[in-house]
């Protein structure tokens, strides 16, 4: 039993689906990846930041190494862009060799670049960039597609995904968790894995006295339209100065060509508070426009905020519960949790084995990459697809060229999309420059048709998020 269908929960589900075990994933939201997994930069960090010796450092480096193969296997976009951690103040140049030492201690390739070499690596950098640490192993991926592909593969191998099912308590007895109590009834389980992201401490608390606490740390990210400054690398800032809470973040290209700027960092009290603040946006833009001045003329198309699941020790937690023999915590998975996710899943399986879990492997396990979208096909394939399928002749989302058949495929996925947001995560319909103004009603119409419900019962992201009030008077 896995609690939480973020990238970590889904990666663990996929690993477990290689075995002949009954696996079920419980997720509170109406879709996969609605937590941190749906609000990050998609950067596959190289591992230059985490302090040497930490679990974070180890899993980050191992996860990064596993990414190219995993993405190829699952049909998920991945690009090695490399990362430049930039110093803008010559007085802070000593940070470069220091960071290089740290990177090397983590086993990460890195070198210091300055002047011409730096501009050659990233022509978009402004005059303020003095020097940088260059880590060629950094990459970018699409967190939604990755999570979907992991879940899809798991589902094809028999894993059951129960969405809109919130774990509210645990049934415990004699030092073991017997099952969980949810908003949709009780589920019995022999093994429970807690991957509940920002709420992992609350879930842990359902099984006994507190073992750790998580304090949500908010970060705003601004999305810029394609066709803006051509930034080819992941860019970060190395600095000792400034607000310690605004550490991290940067500018990075996303696999679909948009530019992401941010995040900042700010502790918040409310675990649901993903509101974007004017102040947060301003700080992020002020800070990073200095790196790439051309950003000032670029067009933003959206802003969102994510909550990192930070613990006080700031390290990942992948260990059995102190109170329950069959409960594994996979918690505190903040950045670079996406990059580390393949290694986290592998470690979680090792831990489960140490705890006594065993099952024969599944000889017929399949890999089920998501169907390729029309946009991803080459011209000849597009011609074929459009000839064979009238649904590929109807473009539903103009900004991202998503066809009716792309949307229908998402609605019929093994872990089906049922809401506007879920379709957006799977197809990008609504993520483009018009932000759903054009495709929103069209996608909603398809959802209504596929599910056999009236248009006004379609939601944006599950119960309570109704899109339309009802029919007009005539």
């Amino acid at each position, binding site marked *: 039993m896995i609690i939480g269908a973020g990238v970590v929960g889904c990666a663990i589900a996929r690993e477990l689906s290689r075995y002949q075990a009954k696996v079920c994933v419980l997720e509170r939201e109406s879709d996969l990846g609605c937590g941190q997994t749906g609000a990050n930069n998609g950067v596959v960090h190289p591992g230059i930041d985490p302090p040497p010796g930490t679990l974070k450092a180890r899993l980050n480096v191992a996860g990064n190494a596993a990414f190219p193969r995993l993405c190829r296997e699952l049909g998920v976009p991945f690009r090695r862009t490399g990362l430049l951690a930039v110093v803008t103040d010559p007085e802070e140049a000593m940070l470069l060799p220091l960071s290089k030492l740290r990177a090397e201690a983590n086993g990460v390739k890195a070198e210091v670049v300055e002047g011409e070499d730096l501009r050659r690596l990233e022509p978009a950098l402004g005059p303020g960039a003095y020097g940088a640490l260059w880590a060629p192993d950094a990459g970018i991926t699409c967190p939604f597609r990755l999570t979907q592909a992991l879940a899809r593969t798991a589902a094809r191998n028999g894993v059951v995904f129960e969405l809109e099912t919130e774990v509210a308590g645990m049934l415990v007895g004699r030092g073991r968790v017997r099952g969980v109590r949810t908003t949709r009834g009780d589920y019995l389980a022999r093994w429970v894995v807690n991957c509940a992201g920002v709420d992992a401490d609350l879930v842990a608390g359902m099984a006994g006295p507190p073992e750790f606490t998580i304090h949500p740390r908010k970060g705003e990210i601004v999305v810029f339209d394609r066709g803006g400054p051509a930034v080819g690398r992941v860019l970060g800032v190395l600095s000792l100065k400034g607000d310690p809470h605004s550490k991290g973040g940067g500018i990075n290209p996303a696999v679909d060509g948009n530019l992401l700027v941010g995040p900042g960092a700010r502790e918040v009290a409310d675990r649901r508070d993903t509101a974007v603040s004017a102040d947060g946006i301003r700080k992020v833009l002020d800070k990073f426009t200095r790196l790439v001045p051309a950003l000032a003329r670029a067009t933003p198309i959206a802003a969102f905020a994510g909550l990192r699941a930070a613990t006080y020790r700031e390290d990942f937690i992948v260990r059995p519960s102190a109170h329950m023999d069959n409960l594994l915590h996979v918690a505190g998975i903040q950045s670079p949790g996406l990059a580390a996710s393949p290694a986290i899943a592998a470690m979680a399986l090792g831990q489960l084995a140490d705890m006594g879990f065993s099952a024969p492997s599944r000889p017929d396990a399949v890999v089920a990459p998501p169907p390729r979208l029309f946009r991803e096909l080459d011209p000849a394939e597009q011609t074929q697809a459009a*000839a064979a399928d009238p649904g590929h002749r109807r473009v539903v989302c103009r900004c991202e060229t998503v066809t009716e058949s792309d949307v229908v495929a998402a609605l019929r996925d093994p872990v089906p999309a049922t809401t506007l947001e879920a379709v957006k995560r799977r197809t990008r319909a609504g993520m483009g420059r*018009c932000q759903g103004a054009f495709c929103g009603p069209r996608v909603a119409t398809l959802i209504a048709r596929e599910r056999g419900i009236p248009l006004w019962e379609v939601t944006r992201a599950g119960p309570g998020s109704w899109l339309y009030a009802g029919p007009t008077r005539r």
Partner: protein
Amino acid sequence: MGGHPGGPGIVAVRGAHATMSGEVDVCVVGSGPAGLAAAAAARRAGAGRVVVVDRETSPGGILPQCIHDGFGLEEFGEAFTGPEYAERAAGDAACVGVEFWQGTTALALGPGPELVLVGGSGRQVLRPRTVVVATGCRERTRGNILLPGTRPAGVFTAGTAQRLINVMGVLPGRRAVVMGSGDVGLIVARRLHLEGCEVEGVYEILTRPGGLVRNVVQCLHDHGIPLHLGHTVVEVHGDRRLEGVTVAAVDADGRVRQGTRRRVPCDTLITSLGLIPELEILRGLTDGTVDESMRTGLERVFLCGNAAFVHDTVDCVTACGRLAGRAAARHAAGLRWPRRVARVEAGEGVRQVVPGALSELAEAARFHLRLDVEGFDVEVQARARDRPLARWRLRAVSPTQAVALTAGPARLERLRQDRTLAFVARPGKEEAGGRIHRR
């Protein structure tokens, strides 16, 4: 999505879903009033095969969702509703032998010109002699202005809301706040009100309404909908569905005035933040600059209608389409593609001017401008670096209304004396309230 319950049906169009192949003289992308006018004009000017492609299943562009009247006063001397105007324009084009490929999206454009189309019978590459891009506008969104807050359901652009109500028969919500007072916003406010959705108010950041006075009176005052000038929405609230917005008074620089924040409960926010020309298929090829006959920087490709300049009325859009269509027919028949001989820029007091270039073939031109000045008795000059080349006097101008200036052969001859000319506008008489608006 095919039906238009809000208005009379569009005429059945001859040639719809015909085989998408063969030789094409003029291919028009977009069947709004600009595209329809361009296509009909091209046929009338002697073009052989003229095809209009549009991703919608019926022609008319944005018009079928504009069920209010007031369209075509200049063109037809009569006030039509949007669907009626569309029906007329489509009928006219069909009568002169224009072919319609509805339900067809232009995915990409390339030099040649070459168009990648998907629809009707599949995906294909078309190589027409000329292409007229008439793809209209899209709306500025809350994302473009980075409006802070949560991201719940219930935030719609005015155009989307208009489409939901008038074309799809769906009510977006029960209590709405409208942000921005452009014409589309005003018209949607009235529509929502008439459909039983309470409109709490319209909030406009400037100190003047963005739309026509006529619309302020007929859409708001007549229905008791408050208009808050110098106010804007500063934050969005609600986790799942919108629960409210924070509104505030702002100063001339758009900064929130202390102590004026107020939370307004509502389940719907309509954003009417302006229109942006849809130049998607020109991206990476050429910018949206056109010359006096709507030629783009890409050989044998034209741009017209709201995609070239956000016009105030459909009549201007139609005239602009006609200009492009006529020129396209001539180039399809073999007329050489001209060089550009002058650049036209917006100078002091002028926000935008179209055309942005003059070609060697230019004999006359019609300039469309958006000004930053208001007042009475305003002088607009077209200047070379050091001297005025031509002057126009305007009785009354305002930043919210476009102005059109004509240059006949004599004036144009003078304008072509320099390679770069800038349009400038001096504020109107002080006592008449003239001033410069800065953005």
